[in-house]
């Protein structure tokens, strides 16, 4: 296998030459089946676990003392919790884009990055889903969000986008989990057949449910993947659209605009691809997977990031233009306050991170170098977080009557909860790379030249 990784593939190849069905299977499954856990894995999961404990601490304090430990105070009732919710769920969107939309578009390069991108989606949605619940004030009553027969005789208001969001996000989490599991089944069977440990054989065997690669099963399986992709595609677009409805349907200046849905979806994919790169670049270096996650993958992801970044830039320009062109004094003031008011630093930082800095990706030198690409992705992630922060906080802080204005100051518990969910994400992700194949083995097999059935033999 060593000779495979020593020969880096040319820039336009999505898989290095020299791989066979056997070596692909071995290289990916060994990461999971080896008894020797690499040191950096322990380092990574320690960071994740420590921050996860910080999250548990912050949540325990929140449950005992209430949301007053956060900086939220009327008029800014949404603060960090909703910022983080929108940020995390946006990150999740790239996973679904890669697994569903690129499958429908027949983009073969997705095959080696879809598995961990879907895992990223799942964990990001888990982090996202916690925030609205923690923000409820009485999180133990979260089930009140769902319509169910109850002794109080009350029901959710189906005309409210916040209730739509409950349905959208829970459907999204469910469908992502199903899609991920269906994709995993054939690879779980591979792990079951290759492991030597009795326990692992049993565990993967149960999870693989008796998958045996039968041609009859594959034919149904292919239909199922296409159907799930077809269902997940409109779903993923709807989820961030509904998230944006939480804002647009309110009349707060700076929120009440019709272009929020496409602008939010583009922003979601933008930050999601940044996260894909942040995960892929260290992963492939640590596990020597440059032959499977090639420079071509990084290049493509960077291009998607650049393209969606330009859509986001257009949205910022349009937002400013509309505020002026509408002639609405409140809209104009909202944007002006963003640029010059108490949140001006955040606003200009987000413009720098989201619009100015990513223009460097036009240069092949920067796009082609994993280190600079990694750094630009981090910048985009910070920028996208700031974007949601500025939209939420600055609009609420200075809405209509100046007498009712008030600023938001994050407390240490705001930060602890936010950083804590990053810990949860890291923790789950490290568990995932140790226990499940991080690259879809069977889909990579289909990319190999030897997977082609030579039709001239048909005779």
């Amino acid at each position, binding site marked *: 296998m060593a000779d495979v990784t020593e020969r880096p593939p040319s820039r336009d190849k999505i898989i290095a030459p020299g791989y066979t069905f056997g070596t692909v299977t071995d290289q990916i499954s060994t990461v999971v089946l080896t008894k020797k856990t690499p040191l950096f894995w322990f380092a990574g999961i320690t960071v994740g676990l420590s921050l996860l404990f910080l999250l548990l601490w912050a949540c325990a304090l929140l449950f005992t003392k209430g949301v007053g430990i956060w900086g939220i105070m009327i008029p800014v009732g949404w603060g960090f919790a909703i910022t983080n919710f929108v940020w995390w769920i946006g990150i999740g969107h790239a996973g679904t884009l890669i697994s569903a939309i690129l499958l429908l578009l027949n983009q073969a390069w997705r095959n080696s990055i879809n598995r961990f991108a879907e895992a990223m989606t799942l964990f990001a949605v888990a982090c996202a889903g916690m925030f609205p619940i923690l923000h409820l004030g009485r999180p133990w009553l979260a089930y009140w969000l769902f319509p169910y027969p109850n002794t109080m005789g009350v029901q959710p208001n189906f005309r409210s986008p916040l209730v739509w969001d409950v349905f959208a996000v829970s459907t999204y989490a469910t*469908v992502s989990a199903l899609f991920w599991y269906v994709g995993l089944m054939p690879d779980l069977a591979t792990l079951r057949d290759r492991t030597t440990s009795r326990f692992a054989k049993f565990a993967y065997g149960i999870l693989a449910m008796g998958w*045996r690669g039968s041609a009859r099963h594959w034919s149904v399986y292919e239909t199922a993947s296409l*159907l799930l992709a077809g269902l997940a595609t409109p779903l993923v677009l709807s989820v961030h659209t509904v998230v944006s409805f939480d804002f647009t349907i309110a009349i707060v200046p700076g929120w009440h605009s019709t272009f929020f849905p496409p602008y939010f979806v583009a922003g979601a994919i933008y930050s999601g691809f940044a996260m894909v790169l942040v995960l892929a670049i260290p992963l492939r270096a640590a596990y020597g997977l440059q032959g499977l996650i090639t420079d071509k993958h990084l290049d493509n992801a960077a291009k998607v990031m650049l393209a969606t970044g330009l859509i986001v830039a257009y949205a910022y320009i349009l937002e400013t233009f509309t505020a002026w062109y509408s002639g609405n004094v409140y809209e104009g003031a909202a944007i002006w306050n963003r640029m010059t008011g108490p949140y001006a630093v955040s606003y200009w930082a987000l413009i720098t991170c989201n619009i100015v800095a990513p223009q460097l990706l036009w240069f092949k030198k920067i796009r082609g170098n994993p280190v600079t690409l990694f750094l630009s992705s981090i910048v985009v992630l910070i920028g996208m977080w700031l974007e949601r922060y500025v939209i939420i906080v600055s609009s609420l802080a200075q809405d209509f009557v100046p007498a009712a204005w008030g600023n938001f100051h994050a407390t240490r518990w705001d930060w602890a909860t936010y950083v804590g969910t990053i810990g949860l994400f890291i923790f789950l992700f490290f568990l995932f790379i140790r226990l499940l194949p991080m690259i879809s083995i069977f889909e990579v097999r289909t990319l190999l030249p030897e997977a082609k059935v030579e039709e001239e033999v048909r005779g």
Partner: protein
Amino acid sequence: MTKGIYGLMAEFDNPTALVNAARAAREKGFRKLDAYTPFPIEELSEALHLHKNRLPLIVLFFGICGGTLGYLLQYFVTVWYFPINIAGRPLHSWPSYIVITFEVTILFAAISTVLGLFALCGLPMPYHPAFNVPRFALASRNRFFLCIESTDPLFDHDRTVEFLESLEPREVSEVAH
């Protein structure tokens, strides 16, 4: 005739050989056939005439059910069970129902896709005779298997072995029950 076995299995080391073998077996008249591969092969489904399945119909049916239920749930709650005047909107304010109707449609369709996949494949299946062949573990790695089952009317142990051998496999083995 050997009744005691599940079938006979031939092992190939590339997809082209398997597809050709599957075509030859179909031409020979065998119908109780299955092939086992480490990844989906479109030509193989063609060779074994597997292109139609009922999954899309199942998904369509449950998707429509989900959408209908989602809409009726909201109609029932807002018009009949818990009517409440919000900003003077009509009780039956259908544009507000669109999002949840859509989400429930997708939810039902996606769950039925997965359950339908399991149902049509007969999963979970804790035991299958194919696993009795020791080399079958390679079907999830880099080998391609064709199995002629003993329930096939044309199945005759010796002649089937002879036929499979003529396809130049790496190995032909009996699959015990």
